[in-house]
């Protein structure tokens, strides 16, 4: 039926970051792996696009990481052409008055930066940092591991025994993070609105939750736990996000993975209730005993014919998985490097957060929940051309994640509203860099609807599904589906819709690969 050279043990659907990493790890474990990608280019949410002639920019994701050191080692991406134009990128809480606060992870630096605003906050910083670090340590295994425990990971020998936190229940204080909102935790610790705004922004970024929602404190600890084993932190690849994908692609091929582009899956193939491969839109059937999908769980399980093999209640349960995006991406080509009030140009390579306080975050959320966006939106910006000259010869590009932008507007259409959103973004930027709006040569605005089309993920959510307590761990994407395995034998999930959600971390793929191998051991 199939020739030996064409045979695959595993088919991975989708050549995004998670799909490619999962494929590579499986190929390194001597499985014959084929990746099928619907688009003409690999990358999913990690592509470099041309904004206008001479200006290239990361289409969606604009920073990579934090990547696990051990994972990076096993992928050997540097050998496959990955050069970083910046690493260990810091976060700067930007203030319109120029009194910025740099959060670079160094306790002493941060305390010094804070002292400009408040002596009390400078003193409190190490206490807060300690609380968060302790919480992160305790939930690290939960955040990074396969939901429900790492026993099978250990059995498969892949990253087994990497657990760092002690056994048993969480400390009472850490457990209180489950119920606490990030706003109340910060209100109790600090007084500087700018600091609280930036920290709260980081906690809720990508979640359709206000900073006063319960459980958002845990999200802050969770981000910290994802950072735990990284040596390079947030990085920017030379050439943008697409360069990261290129290196991944080469690493995959180097490990023996076959990548088939322009190969859109029509449906899955089954054999007596077991997955048996995929059928492409072209009608071509590809057989494999294992299929790993990096697409969103709803598409994988409900659109490709698997729903006939799913337990009845699970189909209903997937209804509740919230996947509507709440973040927009704005890319700008700039005639020159704008100057930001009170900041050295060298610092413009960092990640800049434009959120003056929890109030502004709440106002942005208020507008979002009413089906609109704030005239004064909060955002995270990077200007990658400050350190990566390949992107924009002599000129500059700016990339912004604009937060709390709804997928559907309560009134009006996005076609018209995009220009309005752009002018709101311009208005915010002007507060920090007055000349910036006049330097704009070209602009792209991608709202969740566009992201849905570009990344091919239902709902267009940055994280492949809302990041919130009830959509993580054993409940992501739904109870009974959380361990990367599905009830259909041979069918696995590895995309951002699995624990621990999105961000370019590769954790989903790494965990999925270990589960795939463990399932083979069981069988």
């Amino acid at each position: 039926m199939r020739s030996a050279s064409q045979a695959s043990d595993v088919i991975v659907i989708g050549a995004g970051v998670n799909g490619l990493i999962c494929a590579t790890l499986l190929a390194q474990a001597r499985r014959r792996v084929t990746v099928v990608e619907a688009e003409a280019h690999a990358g999913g949410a990690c592509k470099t696009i041309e904004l206008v002639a001479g200006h290239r920019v990361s289409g969606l994701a604009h920073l990579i990481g934090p990547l696990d050191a051990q994972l990076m080692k096993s992928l050997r991406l540097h050998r496959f052409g990955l050069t970083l134009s910046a690493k260990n990128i810091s976060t700067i809480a930007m203030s319109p008055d120029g009194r910025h606060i740099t959060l670079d992870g160094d306790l002493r630096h941060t305390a010094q930066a804070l002292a400009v605003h408040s002596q009390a906050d400078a003193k409190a910083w190490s206490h807060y940092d300690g609380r968060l670090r302790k919480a992160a340590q305790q939930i690290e295994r939960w955040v990074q591991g396969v939901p429900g425990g790492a026993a099978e990971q250990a059995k498969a020998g892949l990253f087994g025994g990497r657990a760092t936190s002690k056994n048993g229940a969480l400390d009472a204080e850490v457990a209180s993070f489950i119920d606490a909102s990030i706003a109340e935790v910060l209100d109790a610790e600090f007084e500087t609105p700018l600091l609280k705004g930036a920290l709260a922004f980081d906690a809720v970024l990508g979640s359709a939750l206000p900073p006063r929602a319960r459980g958002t404190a845990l999200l802050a600890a969770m981000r910290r736990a994802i950072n735990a084993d990284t040596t390079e932190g947030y990085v920017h690849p030379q050439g943008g996000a697409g360069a990261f994908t290129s290196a991944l692609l080469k690493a995959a091929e180097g490990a023996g993975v076959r990548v088939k582009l322009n190969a859109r899956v029509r449906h899955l193939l089954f054999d007596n209730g077991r997955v048996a491969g995929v059928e492409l839109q072209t009608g071509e059937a590809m057989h494999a005993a294992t299929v790993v999908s990096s697409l969103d769980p709803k598409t994988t399980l409900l659109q490709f014919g698997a729903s006939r093999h799913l337990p009845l209640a699970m189909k209903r349960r997937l209804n509740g998985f919230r996947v509507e995006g709440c973040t927009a991406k704005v890319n700008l080509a700039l005639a020159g490097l704008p100057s930001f009030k009170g900041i050295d140009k060298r610092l413009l390579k960092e990640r800049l957060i434009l959120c003056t306080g929890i109030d502004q975050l709440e106002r942005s959320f208020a507008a979002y929940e009413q089906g609109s966006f704030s005239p004064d939106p909060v955002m995270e910006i990077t200007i990658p051309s400050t350190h990566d000259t390949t992107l924009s010869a002599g000129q500059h590009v700016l990339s912004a994640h604009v937060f709390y932008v709804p997928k559907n507007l309560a009134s009006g259409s996005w076609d018209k509203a995009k220009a309005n959103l752009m002018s709101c973004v311009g208005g915010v930027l002007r507060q920090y860099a007055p000349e910036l709006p006049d330097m704009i040569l070209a602009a792209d605005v991608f709202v969740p609807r566009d992201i849905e089309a570009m990344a091919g993920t239902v709902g267009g959510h940055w994280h492949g599904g809302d990041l919130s307590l009830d959509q993580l761990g054993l409940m992501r994407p739904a109870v009974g589906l959380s361990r990367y395995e599905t009830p259909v034998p041979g069918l696995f999930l590895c995309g951002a819709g699995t624990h621990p959600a999105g961000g370019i971390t590769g954790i989903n793929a790494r965990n999925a690969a270990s589960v795939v191998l463990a399932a083979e051991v069981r069988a």
Partner: protein
Amino acid sequence: MAVDRLDAVVIGASVEGLVAAAALATAGRAVTVVERRADATALGEGADAVISAGVVRELDLTSHGLRFAAAPPIVGVSGERALILWPELHAAQASIAALSGRDAEALQGFYVRLARAATPDEQSAGAWLASAQAEPSEAMLFRLTSVARLLDEAFDNELLKGLLAQGAILGTGASPYAPASGQLLTRQSLLAHAAPEAGHRFVAGGERRLRQALLALLKFYNNADVMFGAEAKEIATEREAASGVVLTDGQVLRAPLVISTLAQERAGAMLTGLKRARPAHLPPRASVEPAQVKLTIGALPKLPGVDAATLASGAIVRLNPSLARLAAAHGAFCGLSLPMQPCLDLRFVPRAEAKARWDLHVAMPYVPATTTEGPWSAARRDKLRGLMVRAIDELSAGFGASIESAEMRNPPEADSLLDIGAAALMASQAALDQTAVPEAHGPAALSLLKGLTVVEPTFYGGIGDVGLQAAATGSLVKARADA
């Protein structure tokens, strides 16, 4: 009273206070309740009252004359349609079937889930997250999930989902999309239909009868006493622990345990004899109480699909409830403003007089304690009331004309101090726990000082439950059980 030495003094003859005293009395402890007012039964003007089923069981209140009425129907009105959740399952299913045949068939299973989730889980959420358990228990699932996700999984119909969600969030600042809001669905006041044995019971004869039953129980025990017209002035302390209560007339009641049903700030202020600093109380909470208006009306509004008899039977009516509208209102709340479209809870209570008149209790969730325009002035409160009346008028033209008088109960004036006992009363009258505060996991009855327990009704406990807990917190009940 025949005893020389008291075991406990309870300040305030509110339902919680009386329940705490009753729990101690039945455990064989000598207890005295001091009440500022001259006659506690005169307080209960409400046509109906609720009490936690657990308290009824624990104190065996039915043998002290307590009788119950059926839970009121809950009505959702949207456009030309109405959905009525009757207390009888099949009647509720028949009403839902007109909108969604599928949802009607899913109702019973959902009710059973609520009942299962209302059974508290031994395991803490932290322990579960850290454990290797694959499946969460029903209680854990409700504990962590949002109201919206639970309802989206259970039902298709937006009106039904909105109707249930609005009941869940009322009295909280939580969005139905907030994680960990799911347990709001298992509040006792919402379980009267789904799991009557775990929910609130509706007391026939209202607040007055409830107090009568509690007073009858206390009378039955000769180790319990209720002093009316006795106002506490001071909480006496000895060696930095509460040792009794000093009344305004100078009388001193000595007891090793004091249970206060006054606001904790006020109880704290009564601790005058302490040498060290007064114990700190919890930080003030953001107001999450709904705005409440009591309107006296001469005619019932005509709402589509609901007859006058149903309205007058004490039905709880929600206008245009939906998850989307609640989310939008919550959005406005976050932005410290009022929603364009308010989500209203209406309750009609016939007045005991010859002419046909009704009290209409209107509650509106997500009203911020202060808005971007400043605190609640009289003029702005009038404006808010106008917004509420207009929303009813939109569904029933001419409603505004039937209003004879209006009384705004909330939002409170900035400096008004809520008497918790009275708040519990208000909650009983409205048959909703509108006074509830989402202090999810803080203790319902907190110990400010050795020997002093402050009772705060929270929505997680049912009405009366906190009183029980206060008695237990005082450790007297437990001590007896151990012996």
